[in-house]
């Protein structure tokens, strides 16, 4: 009787330990740290074929569900305020927000919702999902890499990733002639999520 109770008790302790240690865990939800600006969506496009033009979207929010045991069951979602486009040039940004490019008055939001995640290595995965820009939704695939994660110094728990992809401007209804070298834009995303 005594040993049985002791056995049950120790199993409960082990079970609780496993749960809290995260070995037997459900997926966790992480909110992208846009408030502390440890999350970036940058773009890079050729200028005339001579150099790279860099810019970013300053305002967005997103979250991801991370299932470390079953990465395939993870998911990610981002909402971008397109008007926050910033290429460090007021008149160019105004042009980008206008009808020739994003037409933010009509299409203020862009967004990404993952539909499928495939693990491709220890720290890498392909994230496929629906990307919406200028009212057009198309599937795209991001090449994602896990950077690191753990307890932060302020009592929270964080995980960070980076990802890249390429988009054809024409695919999303942007056909302003920037020249043959500037038809594809490179996207670089780096996000840190705080466990909720």
């Amino acid at each position, binding site marked *: 009787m005594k040993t049985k109770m002791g056995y049950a008790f120790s199993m409960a302790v082990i079970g609780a330990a496993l749960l809290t240690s995260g070995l037997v865990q459900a997926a966790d939800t992480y909110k992208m740290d846009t408030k502390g600006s440890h999350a970036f969506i940058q773009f890079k496009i050729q200028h005339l074929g001579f150099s790279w033009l860099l810019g970013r979207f300053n305002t967005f929010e997103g979250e991801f569900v991370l299932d470390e045991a079953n990465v395939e069951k993870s998911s990610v979602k981002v909402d971008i305020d397109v*008007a*926050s*486009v*910033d290429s*460090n*040039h*007021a*008149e160019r*940004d*105004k042009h980008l*927000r*206008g009808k020739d490019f994003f037409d*933010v*008055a009509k299409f203020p939001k862009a967004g990404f919702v993952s539909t499928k995640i495939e693990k491709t290595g220890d720290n890498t995965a392909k994230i496929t999902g629906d990307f919406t820009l200028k009212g057009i939704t198309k599937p795209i695939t991001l090449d994602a890499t896990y950077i690191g994660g753990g307890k932060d110094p302020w009592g929270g728990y964080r995980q960070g990733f980076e990802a890249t992809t390429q988009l054809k401007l024409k695919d999303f209804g942007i056909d*302003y*002639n*920037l*020249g043959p070298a500037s038809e594809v834009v490179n996207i670089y995303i780096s996000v840190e999520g705080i466990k909720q």
Partner: protein
Amino acid sequence: MLANSESGYGLVSVLLHWLSALLTILLFGVGLYMVGLSYYDPLYHELPEWHKSLGVVLALLSLFRLVWRVLSGPPAPLAEKRWQGAAARLVHATMLALLILLPVTGYFIVTAEGKPLMVFELSLLPALLELAPNQTDMVGRWHLWGAWGLIGLAVVHAAAALKHHFVDRDRTLIRMLTIKGQ
């Protein structure tokens, strides 16, 4: 000679008037044309630079016009009917207000992200405050509507002057073409 008299305009007012008219029409044409240029047009960068620089020149001219109006008031009104005088005053005041509002909005479009406004390749006007994207776009719309408003009023203004000249056969238009100052 320079200042206005009771019966006519002096040289300064006449020059200010016609120079303003010329620059206003030039800026309006260049402004509308330049925003439609394709990226590979040789004037894609050139015309906006000219538009900004000449815009600052016109802004200074308009400010001086306000000062000059105080220093040397306009000659006695020619209008015979009261409503004509009131209409003329309203149109003149609105045009002057737009001549001030247009460069102010233009300045805020250019400097919205902290970069100075270049005047003939010199960065003369630093940015004073940064605007949010939606504010910049709104200011841009004001600039466009203001420009159309000013040109619309200029057409009314010119039509009225021609009507005075050819229909009423009074000295309204002649007065702005001859120097009768003191």
